[in-house]
């Protein structure tokens, strides 16, 4: 942790040095780096494109949280499910969505993942187990529980990860969902992305006990806190929880602690926030930390790491080009498509 500034260590005492879990293949580590770089590149471009009015609506960047989605999704398979939040790009990419179709969606194009009807806030790819971003905080949580019910009834061994923010933990449905998962011993992992902010509202103003993992006690399940800027820490905790869940061990509550670095949404200047804190956060940048670790640990050469990063950036750039130039606006006559199933139209 050579670059992490002192203040950051005070703000986030849970920061732990990166260390790949023993047995984690180089391929896996490369994947992790690639995905984290892809998310970083994707959302950096989204921010620019939004500012340039090429992307419409609202968009929330996953920048700074990459270690969480990637650490978690590397611990599950394509057949497993995740539920998401308003900040869903990272989850979608980590779960393996096509970057071109994703970017096309943000451009509102017909070739987009959602045919231009969802945009950033509803980005989804149910075929690969990504149950959709949602603009209503908390509303995705019970879907992870539902996926776990399906797993239980269909007996197919899948697990579900319920991603949500610290803000989301104060929605009633959070409590209801975790209580049911515990009572019914279902294979769900509750993964709190605790960046200590809900827009401009600090966690400490709205929650007395800020060690959110302690809430697990009340549900009789295991609760753990991990370093949210540390992809291996997240990965290990999720992996353990997933293994347990697959064996019928029920849910786990994992609090991945980090700090939001960028603004809440792509145009938020964070005027309400201590600017020093923000620059301090950058010293714990999860992408830089991973790059540095991989080189220092001699897992990869600097050149290889740079190449991985560049390839990820290139992929995203290609996605932007694709969305911008090769895709089409949804035809007006698709307006009534897919309100109902099987082509049914009710005017």
């Amino acid at each position, binding site marked *: 942790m050579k670059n992490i500034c002192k203040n950051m260590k005070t703000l986030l005492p849970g920061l732990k040095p990166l260390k790949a879990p023993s047995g984690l293949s180089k391929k896996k580590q490369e994947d992790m780096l690639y995905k984290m770089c892809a998310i970083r590149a994707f959302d950096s471009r989204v921010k620019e494109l939004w500012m340039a009015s090429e992307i419409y609506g609202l968009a929330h960047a996953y920048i700074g949280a990459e270690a969480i989605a990637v650490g978690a999704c590397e611990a599950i398979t394509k057949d497993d499910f995740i539920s998401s939040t308003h900040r869903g790009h990272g989850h979608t990419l980590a779960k393996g969505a096509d970057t071109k179709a994703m970017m096309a969606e943000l451009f509102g194009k017909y070739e987009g993942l959602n045919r231009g009807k969802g945009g950033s806030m509803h980005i989804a790819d149910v075929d690969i187990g990504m149950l*959709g971003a949602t603009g209503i905080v908390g*509303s995705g949580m019970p879907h992870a529980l*539902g996926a776990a019910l399906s797993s239980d009834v269909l007996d197919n061994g899948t697990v*579900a990860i319920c991603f949500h923010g610290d803000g989301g933990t104060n929605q009633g449905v959070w409590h*209801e969902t975790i209580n049911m998962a515990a*009572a019914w011993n279902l294979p769900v992992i509750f993964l709190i992305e605790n960046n200590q902010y809900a827009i401009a509202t600090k966690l400490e103003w709205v929650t007395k006990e800020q060690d959110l993992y302690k809430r697990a006690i009340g549900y009789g399940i295991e609760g753990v806190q991990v370093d949210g800027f540390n992809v291996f820490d997240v990965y290990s905790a999720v992996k353990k929880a997933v293994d347990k869940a697959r064996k019928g061990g029920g849910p786990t509550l994992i609090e991945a602690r980090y700090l939001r670095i960028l603004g809440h949404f792509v145009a938020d200047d964070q005027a309400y926030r201590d600017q020093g804190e923000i620059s301090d956060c950058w010293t714990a940048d999860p992408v830089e930390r991973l790059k540095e670790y991989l080189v220092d640990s001699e897992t990869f050469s600097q050149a290889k790491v740079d190449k991985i990063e560049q390839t990820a950036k290139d992929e995203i750039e290609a996605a932007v080009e694709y969305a911008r130039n090769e895709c089409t606006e949804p035809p007006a006559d698709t307006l009534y498509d897919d*309100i109902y199933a099987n082509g049914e139209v009710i005017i």
Partner: protein
Amino acid sequence: MSEITVRQALNDALREEMEIDPTVIIMGCDIAVRGGPFGVTLGLLDQFGRKRVKDTPISEPGFTGAGVGAAATGLRPIVEILYSDWLTLCTDQIVNMAAKMRYMFGGKVNMPLVIRAPFGAGGGVAAQHSQSFEAWFNHIPGLKVVAPITPYDVKGMLKAAIRDDNPVMFFEHKRSYQITGEVPDNEDYIVPFGKAAIRREGTDVTIVSYSMMSIRAQNAAEELAKQGISCEVIDLRSILPLDYETVMNSIAKTNRVVVCQEANLRGGLAADIVAEIIDRGFDLLDAPPVRVGAPNVPMPYNAGLEALCIPDEENIKEAVMKVMSND
């Protein structure tokens, strides 16, 4: 054919669909061990076990949302909200999730979810257990909304709802469980949505109704027949989609229409139907359409006051007389 109750028809529909399709599950407060407060789900737990028949905690948003998530991932869940008044607790999951997910996701998800919600007034259960909110859900594209009342329809439409790949609001009238009627034995039938039933043919006035109001409308029509007024009673059965073809064909014949609902009149479904009738056939009308509904009052507990708030045969007859008097 056997004469069975609405309760039995619901129970049969649930059981048969659960037998046919192992992905059908049902959950709600108290539905398993106790078979529900109205006895509709009795026996299902024993037959299908705890995985598929779930007593939930009192967590309506959570278990409705779990139904949404389960529907998106391979099950066909049926969620019971014990009194439709409490749909207020889980409207977010129904309106902003179940109804919209397929559209928001560009068609790439299925949402075969049934929400069963006993509705309607009576019995002194007062302001929080007597409401009818079908008008709200009619406002939400992506949902289907039905409210059958005969055992035949109730069974056939619940089966259709379970097989539908869209979210369906299934409104059962909570005072209807003892109503009896003929239902075919050993026949796997469904009653498709979007087709109204003409319960009584008539030539003077069309009465558009659904659920319990269609029974009251038939009673009123019988009495009016004695006074020489011939009413055609339409039981919509399905509210969204709504069979305007049948409605307009009837009005083309009678040129007069009364539209009935049990909910508070203001902002109710009857207004929407009237506005549509006006759009589709203003020229067919010899008199302004008349609506029947409850006064705009929260349901009072006292039996006498409550009676003033449940639209009945008298209200329907008055409405028919009004639409007849107006040329």
